[in-house]
């Protein structure tokens, strides 16, 4: 019960950005120097309602600078998937709706666009649970990712080779039905499929789900390379806080449909509360951020 002690600790943590501040630039000097100044994605204070009644997101704001890897952390049911689907406009099929707030992709309001229009503009989601087309071969799966492209066969073929160069295992299995490949291969296939759309921003939902630690590492390593070499920006929703914070530059922590904490990845990694609640480094059991005064105060600013 040392709530006071915790509360006193929190301000010692490096600059967490305040939402709604006009200053949209990433504020911290600890961000990698190569981060471009343009904002790829800006989500401002969105609310999402399912089935006309269930309020799931209660004012989420976040920002993804071009060229960065940003992670969205949180426990089961926190609203990570809902946030990503709100961005990619896949909520409609689940009877969900963005009822408030705005979402801009490279400065343009996108929340009325169809998912395919958004893909055409360069924002694509890799859904939770991989969702490969089971009765299509791995290569056919990859090619479906190029559906919106109009730049011709040669360009698509070249990108196919690019994907195979990052995921050599997919090349070996190109002729097998995706439904019969392993979980790791399916995750690679799902990421590869998204890359075939030539995206600028990939929304990656829980790539670690159900995979062995070694494979999780491998996948994140490839995400990192894609980010560096192909200049793809990533917004990664994860429960695996540990891995996600090692690869991301910036993180947001979502609880109960609200962002309760955000900051540069290394700052979050060093944060005592994150250590305790999400990295499992503390002796005491898991608690919620809600129990802590300083974060309660933050919430009212949102």
């Amino acid at each position, binding site marked *: 019960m040392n709530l006071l002690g915790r509360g006193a600790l929190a301000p010692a943590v490096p600059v967490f950005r305040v939402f709604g501040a006009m200053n949209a630039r990433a504020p911290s000097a600890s961000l990698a120097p190569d981060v471009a100044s343009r904002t790829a994605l800006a989500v401002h204070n969105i609310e999402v309602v399912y089935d006309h009644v269930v309020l799931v997101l209660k004012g989420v704001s976040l920002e993804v600078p071009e060229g960065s890897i940003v992670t969205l952390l949180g426990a089961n049911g926190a609203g990570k998937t809902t946030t990503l689907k709100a961005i*990619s406009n*896949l909520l*409609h*099929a*689940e*009877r969900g709706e963005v009822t408030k707030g705005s979402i801009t992709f490279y400065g343009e309001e996108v929340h009325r666009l*169809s*998912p*395919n229009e*958004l*893909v*055409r503009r360069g924002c*694509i*989601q*890799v*859904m939770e*649970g*991989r*969702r*490969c*087309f*089971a*009765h*299509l071969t791995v290569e*056919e*799966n990859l*090619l*479906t*990712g190029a*559906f*919106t492209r109009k730049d011709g066969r040669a360009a698509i073929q070249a990108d196919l080779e690019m994907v195979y160069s990052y995921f050599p295992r997919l090349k070996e299995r190109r002729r097998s*039905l995706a*439904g*019969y490949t392993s*979980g790791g291969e399916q995750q690679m296939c799902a990421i590869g*499929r*998204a890359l075939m*759309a030539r995206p600028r921003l990939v929304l990656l939902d829980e790539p670690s789900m159900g995979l062995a630690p070694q494979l999780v590492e491998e996948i994140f390593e490839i995400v990192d390379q894609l980010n560096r070499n192909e200049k793809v920006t990533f917004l990664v929703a994860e429960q695996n806080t540990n891995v996600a914070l090692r690869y991301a530059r910036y993180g947001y922590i979502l609880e109960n449909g609200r962002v309760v904490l955000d900051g540069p990845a290394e700052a979050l990694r060093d944060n005592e509360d994150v250590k305790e609640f999400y990295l499992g480094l503390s002796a005491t059991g898991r608690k919620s951020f809600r129990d802590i005064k300083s974060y309660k105060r933050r919430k009212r600013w949102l």
Partner: protein
Amino acid sequence: MAELGPVLEVFLGGLMSGVLYALVALGFVLIFKASGVFNFAQGAMVLFAALSLVRLSEWLPFGVAVLLTIAIMIALAWAVERLVLRPLVGQHGLILFMATIGVTFFLDGFGQTIWGSNVYQLDLGIPASPWFLFENLFPGGILVSPIDVFAAVIAGTLVVALSIFFHSTKIGRALRAVADDHQAAQSVGIPLNQIWLIVWSTAGIVALVAGMAWGTKLGVQFSLSLIALKALPVLILGGLTSIPGAIIGGLIIGAGEKLAEFYIGPLIGGGIEYWFAYVLALAVLLVRPQGLFGEKIIERV
């Protein structure tokens, strides 16, 4: 060997009517494959297409009437997509199925209201008198109906064309992707609305072909709508997701029921034709729920 002639005749006749069942089943398969919807209205679409064609051809050249009917079927597909599928997206499959039952009754009623409800003769200019084949082999030869042969050729062409379409084109690949996982397909930028429009239009055209074949045989009348019920066992046998399955299922059922009637019918006083298909389908269902050619149900995720 005097027996072989009639048996062969029965068998061939069965195969031919099987093709006609298959033409109807094909429409079901197309829509089910691409949208996971079991479209009960396929039979009504057959009737509607045939009625439109036969009435339009009364005052238009036949070719123009065919084109106009195709346009009508595409417009119908558009309306179904807009008014039924789109509002119901994300709902349970059973709800969509119920919606297609609604479409069935609407089409049956609406079609007869605007086109009339008499029995109309459809004349495709195919000779009505049967051909006699192999007259030198069998006494009297084997009787084959030219209409059946025509239907078989059309069905064969249709199947080949559709297979090529599904497996070698970008749209076809997208259709199969949608069939596997709507949401994932949507997430990679495949527009569901367009895909559904394409599929329902294709199914509408297939319904027109089936309607032409059946209408020529039986006259265009309300009972065409009921041949959908004959397509059900074909679907169970061939699998809901397989185009070749629909054809082969149709052939097996067509030939099977005629042969059963020929051999077993006299022993029990006939009438086997009417229920044989359903019993066969039931037997298949028990042994192989996905049908003979249906896609394997891949369980692992």
